């Protein structure tokens, strides 16, 4: 395991940030930690990357215990924090060269490595510009380059695309994908389900400082269970009529849509068509939909809904 977290607790004053978090990430995979604000995602990343000490439990990263040997961990990891950890006044290349020196590459290799990374992240032309003149996406790519100076065994990405426009997000995604081939283990936190779905091999849903669910995207979707049948009606009157006919529907008057869960997609579809036809309610559209990660997320992280 590239990352192994067992029963980790962390308390800030009287706020319990992590309450027995467990996490196992196999080498060379991408693992997403997904959860709402305040779930403990950032706290977990800060502990795994040696920035924060945990109160209880054990954390091993790249074969070393973060509490017992933080220096060994630091030389094997890269960290992309939530906020760009760059010197804004310096040029992009100056940043990378400085970080290279601080990784003890020596002046010459630090310079070579800086040029290499600028080239790889499409920043070779802007390497001499001050970082404060960079766009959000460029800044994030430089930040990512800075966390890859020594080809880390484990890379932590804490909400790597928060605050980026779609184009910036796509840039970061493709950069992350290109890393995976190289054998780097990536742990990323995100609030965006799409991001976890797109990038991660496995996903851990975190809520209230502990694991709410863990698995592949498909396994998690299956947790919510049923496929749903979605019916779009032509007007509000027909929508109301259909809502009375069909079992346990969720109605959205704005889009004239209703949906409800079914166990067997084909039989359910046939039954729905028949019911609507017999009642003379004309549907504009009819479809079967698999649950989205959004639904999994809401279901598993919203206590009220789980209780209900």
């Amino acid at each position, binding site marked *: 395991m590239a990352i192994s977290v067992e029963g980790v607790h962390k308390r800030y004053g009287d706020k319990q940030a992590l309450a027995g978090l467990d996490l196992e990430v196999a080498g060379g995979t991408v693992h997403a930690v997904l959860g709402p604000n305040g779930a403990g995602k950032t706290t977990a990343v800060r502990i795994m990357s040696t*920035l924060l000490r945990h109160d209880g439990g054990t954390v091993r990263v790249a074969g070393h215990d973060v509490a017992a040997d933080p*220096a060994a961990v630091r*030389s094997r990891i890269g960290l992309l924090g939530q906020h760009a950890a760059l010197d*804004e006044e*310096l040029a992009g290349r100056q940043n990378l060269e400085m970080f290279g*020196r*601080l990784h*003890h590459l020596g002046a010459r290799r630090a310079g070579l490595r800086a040029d290499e990374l600028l080239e790889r992240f499409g920043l070779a032309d802007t390497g001499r510009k001050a970082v404060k003149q960079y766009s959000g996406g460029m800044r994030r790519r430089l930040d990512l380059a800075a966390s890859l100076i020594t080809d880390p065994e484990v890379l932590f990405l804490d909400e790597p695309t928060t605050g980026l426009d779609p184009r910036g997000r796509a840039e970061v995604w493709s950069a992350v994908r290109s890393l995976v081939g190289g054998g780097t283990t990536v742990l990323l936190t995100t609030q965006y389900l799409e991001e976890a779905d797109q990038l991660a091999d496995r996903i851990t849903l975190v809520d209230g400082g502990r694991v709410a669910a863990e698995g592949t995207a498909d396994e998690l979707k299956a947790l919510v269970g049923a496929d749903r049948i979605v019916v779009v009606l032509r007007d509000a009157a027909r929508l109301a009529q259909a809502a009375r006919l069909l079992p346990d529907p969720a109605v959205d008057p704005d889009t004239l849509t209703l949906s409800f869960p079914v166990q067997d997609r084909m039989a359910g579809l046939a039954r729905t068509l028949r019911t609507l036809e017999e009642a003379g309610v004309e549907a504009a559209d009819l479809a079967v939909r698999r649950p989205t990660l959004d639904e999994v997320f809401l279901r598993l992280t919203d206590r009220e809904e789980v209780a209900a």
Partner: protein
Amino acid sequence: MSAVWVVSDSWTMTRRELAHWARQPVQMVVGLVFPVMMLLMFGFLVGGGRGIDGEYVEFLVPGMLALTMAFGLEATLTAVTQDLNKGVIDRFRAMPMSSSAVLVGRSAADMLQSAVGLLVLAAVGLLLGWRWHGGAAAALLAFGLLLLLRFAMLWIGIWLGMVAGRPELVQAVQILVWPVGFLSNAFATPESMPGWLGVVVEWNPLSATATAVRDLFGNPAAAPPSWAADHAALLAVAWPLLLLAVFFPLAVGRYRALSK
């Protein structure tokens, strides 16, 4: 972490600050010009009507040198606050570098900048007619006392930056340093002030350094004879050492507590 890396990493961090100056020469120049402007303003506007032994400039220059050292606190505070808010300190802390290099580099760069500031201000003083009369050794000692005060301010600045870490506080401190700066004998002698104020002014660490430096330069003294004025050299060493004894461990403790 071997000692070699502590030195090498600290040098890398110092170079980072030097690179800031190179990339933002205007900001650097403004930082140097501001005390010069204050000196000219007080020397000509205020000094015209005053005159201590008719040599207000002789009195003012050492005061301004000491004031500039005290105001250095702002520069340190601003830089520390910016680093903390940009998250760049997190990157440093997650790297296999020497953990003391961040603070050592900050102090080295700030001390270097302050030394340059002293030289510029002293040069302008010379142009205005200020002279030192005590010989080279005494002058060097005076500069040493000034830098000692700056060093104490540096660690207060680092500590404050860690405690507050917000740009709003930087503004508050920027305002608060003014009364502290003016409640000293940098511009005027305490005898011209009400009794209680005179006592505050006399015991201000800034006044101790200014008085000691005036003595070393052979410039006219500010204070009427008093215990604090008679022992200015002692106080000019004791005050900064006391401040360092308090704020150095506080600042280092705060830095370590970033991982709590």
